[in-house]
């Protein structure tokens, strides 16, 4: 009887997720096995053609490019975020909650507003250009806005707090005597970081990276605003299929492949961190 209780408590959440997540996903999945009608709309004949189209070199290359941009954003965010988390975790314990609060503060403002702010910064007449001019540089300045780099910068900026939080957790839990033990046994500060601190906190980096990657690869707002329609990521492609090309089956097929990639990564990440944190829990 006792082990039924959690089920009762979970049922509202399960019902909610089933109605508004599982069922819609299944509907989208079903859509992917039909084809677009001649005049738009959906032609309800079962086919694998739509899904096969996703693997057409044209679309596969967009997937690849999206993955590269998301990977780059994840990588840069991981490095910056880990360094920030490391610094916060090294501060006196009483200051740490406040610093974390500041790190997460941008989250509390609207995503669009934050992304628009970057347009102001990266614009041809924007702040960065003004600073360069102010410093006396009057040569040709490279284009900043509407480039792939701008998209990466925007993604890194928006998702950095995730990485900081994900890395802070294992860093703050580290027993400082473990790093001291490495120093005591002859390890330099760098060796200690490389062989002790980094491996012990790697699950946090993996979690942060996967978060940024998953959120970035499907993102369509940032590429639209900071990429200026110069290139497409998967999110933009899906958006276009549903809202402009009126090809819902193909949009659904793209979505499904995207979801499959994300699920695969999240499962892998959960499995890896589960193993590492499980080990730590038993050790203490």
């Amino acid at each position, binding site marked *: 009887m006792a082990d039924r209780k959690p089920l009762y408590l979970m049922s509202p959440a399960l019902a909610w997720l089933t109605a508004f997540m599982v069922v819609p996903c299944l509907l989208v999945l079903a859509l992917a096995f039909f084809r677009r009608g001649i005049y738009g709309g959906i032609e309800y004949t079962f086919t694998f053609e739509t899904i096969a189209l996703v693997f057409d070199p044209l679309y596969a290359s967009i997937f690849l490019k999206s993955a590269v941009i998301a990977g780059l954003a994840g990588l840069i965010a991981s490095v910056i975020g880990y360094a920030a988390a490391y610094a916060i975790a090294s501060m006196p314990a009483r200051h740490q909650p406040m610093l974390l609060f500041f790190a997460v503060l941008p989250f509390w403002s609207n995503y669009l507003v934050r992304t628009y702010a970057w347009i102001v910064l990266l614009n041809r007449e924007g702040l960065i250009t003004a600073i360069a001019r102010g410093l006396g540089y009057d040569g040709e300045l490279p284009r900043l806005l509407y480039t792939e780099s701008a998209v990466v910068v925007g993604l890194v900026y928006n998702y950095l707090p995730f990485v900081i939080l994900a890395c802070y957790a294992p860093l703050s839990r580290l027993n400082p*005597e473990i790093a001291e033990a*490495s120093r*005591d*046994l*002859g390890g330099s500060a760098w060796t200690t970081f490389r062989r002790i601190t980094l491996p012990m906190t790697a699950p946090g980096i993996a979690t942060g990276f996967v978060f940024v990657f998953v959120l970035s690869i499907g993102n369509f707002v940032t590429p639209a605003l900071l990429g200026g329609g110069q290139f497409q990521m998967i999110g933009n492609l899906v958006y276009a299929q549903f809202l402009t090309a009126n090809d819902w089956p193909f949009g659904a097929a793209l979505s499904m492949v995207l979801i499959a990639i994300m699920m695969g990564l999240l499962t892998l990440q959960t499995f890896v961190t589960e193993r590492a944190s499980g080990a730590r829990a038993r*050790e203490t």
Partner: protein
Amino acid sequence: MSDVLLSIRNVQKFYGRLAAVGGVSLDIRDNEFFALLGASGSGKTTLLRMLAGFETPTSGAILLDGQDVSAVPPNHRPVNLMFQSYALFPHMTVAQNIAYGLEMDRMPRSEIRTRVDEMLEVIQLSHLSGRKPEQLSGGQRQRVALARALVKRPRVLLLDEPLGALDKKLRGEMQLELKRIQDEFGITFIVVTHDQEEALVMADRVAILKDGLLLQCGTPHEIYEHPESRFAADFIGVMNFLPVRVQGGRLVAENGNVFKGALPNGLGEGDEAVVAVRPERLRLGASDGDNSLTGRVAATAYHGLDLQLHLDTPNSPGPVLVRLTADAAEGRVYREGEEVTVGWSARDTRVFPA
């Protein structure tokens, strides 16, 4: 002086205006098993961390083989520390943990393997070399931590509360084990502990620290039998304290009882003092010694090896503890309220300022 390995010279450590260690001088000999004994806040851990190199003295010097090492970082000192938490590397196996320090010395791989295998045999964990720390018991982790620090054959091995996390039975075994290993390796051991019994059992010499200062340093026998301060007398073992006043060069209790004992310097006519005597030095009957007191049995405690009597007496605010060996007690039953007189010799009497 030639056999002094580690010389601590007037070392002070301030945190802000707070003195954690307030001027300690100690000479520790080569191949000695030395114990730093003190309660929490006594400065013993700070002193140990300065010896390991994790803290730098505010003033004073730490000399190892005559060389000042006060400012040498921990990774360049021939000193290793066994941490209280063991601080094993959780992502490495037992063998990798032990090998780590040797890898830092860039020792050839084959030699590392030999040394690690040797060490695993010393701690009798060869069969668990591939395990991760999380898969070991508390006692096994303690051995791995010891092996990891010892495998580098440091000049000095520091041990921070090495047996603190073990249960009582295992602690007894490990006390002897540590002594055996220290003897086998011929390395100077410095143990930090708050457990006076542990210090007495293991160490060749014990230093008692209090409030960042060195109170007394000597062999376990010296500090047990000849404590130089009331604190040391109280801290080590069990001690009865009887308040007295110095009158005409004699030690007189409030009820007129007079005790004999050597007066320490600094005690003058009219000063308040305490007479201290160990429970096992008290004998039944007044005739057996220079001093005596009479009290009523408040409680008895039978320990097999000995019988302990708690005596309520006008000579002491708390009960006086008497420890009779099984032979001295002769199977006699002491009832509560019964009047008992005990005596002891002036030789076994210590006198301290109150």
